């Protein structure tokens, strides 16, 4: 087993974990975190491929750098979007069920 195979396996597992959770999870913040994990998985594969030769491939490093910055940009946007949707749902829930407490607020979209 080479280092390339090991890191590809790590990266592919990260990517699959993140992708599966992002597609199946119900919670919006967890989906944002899962997308971040999947992005990290792609970067692991990319940089493992870049580091297989004696002197590492700078073009792939640049792609990884770009990927990191894009990831933080969509994380910020996704967090704002998730909060906005949660707030809208919470407002709807308090309208329909006045007595909803703080604990039930989260499941409030199915009264």
């Amino acid at each position, binding site marked *: 087993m080479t280092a390339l195979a090991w890191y590809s396996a790590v990266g592919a597992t990260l990517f699959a974990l993140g992708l599966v959770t992002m597609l199946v999870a119900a919670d919006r913040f967890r989906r944002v*975190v899962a997308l971040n994990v999947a992005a990290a998985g792609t970067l692991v594969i990319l940089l493992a491929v870049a580091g297989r030769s004696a002197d590492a491939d700078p073009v792939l490093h640049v792609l990884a*750098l770009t990927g990191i910055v894009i990831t933080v940009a969509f994380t910020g*946007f996704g967090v704002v979007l998730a909060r906005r949707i949660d707030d809208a749902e919470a407002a709807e829930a308090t309208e329909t069920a006045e007595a909803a407490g703080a604990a039930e607020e989260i499941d409030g979209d199915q009264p």
Partner: protein
Amino acid sequence: MTGPGIVDIAVGVAVLVAAAVALAVRDRLTSVVTFILLGGMLALLWTAVRAPDVALAEAAIGTGATGALLVDAVADRRSTQARSGRGRGRLVAWAAAATGGAGLVVALVAGVLAADGSGDAAPLTGAVNEAMSSAAVGHDITAVLLDFRAYDTLLEVSVILVAVVGAYALASAVPPGAAAGHAADSSAGHAVGSSAGSSAGSAAGSAARGSTPPAATLVDFLRVASPVLLLLAAWLLFAGAYQPGGAFQGGAMLAGAAILAAGAGAAPALLEGVAGRVAVTVGPLAFLAAGGAGALLAGHWLHMPPGIEAPATVAVETALAVSIGAGLATLFLTVRRRPRQIIGGDPA
């Protein structure tokens, strides 16, 4: 290529465990904190695969901007429990997705190893080294970023710009019923700069409002540490010409310093009003200006103007760092729901 060493195995296992924990726990804050720890481990992984530039960016962005964004979105909620679906259909979905994911892992690893074995995907190191003589900077990664693949970089800073504008537009229209008055800690501090006197003033302001003592320790620490942070940001920016570093890493350090200052009650005045708009857009604009000048003078679109390549590159990179720093900090402050205080607009 030799087999994986102790460090490779340890880092890989740690990354996998942290990712599994971050995705498996129910509590949102736990998930986010574990993800921040995962970011630190990823920086180690990038070092282990000999990508110091990426490690630098991950350490600065992963713990600074991403961590602050995620933690802040979660921490001021009354309950941090994640919502969970129930029912048999969800179980079936999880099982199907897990099977698909396992297949994906096998296919990906097989694909990477097959591509490596076939020898078709030769590294581009040689091509870059050949072209380095025409570049204005001595570090290959900075040269690729600003010279050989300038389109990527231009579109990337544009993505940050779009994210900032989108987040601002989403956050500035407060939905009905939501708590509009986010009791921020810096109603006194936002209008002033980051000089020592104004920090003290804002600390006193938050002391008058809150029941707890102000973060006086934090203010004192920042008085000593912010010059160090800013110096480090400038060092990362300019050292990028000949060693790992550059606009992204420097910009991420700037964003971290700005977020810290905002936490201490003295959000940088640069991020407000017209100055904020200028700071967020100056990077793409400077890049476009230099690229346009290159098109006129050298005949190549996005080529640095001939004769003054080195100063133009430094200027563009400085502008990019300012833009990235301001963009990330503005994203964070938008998540805090104080758009009124950030870009100075008056969201109706």
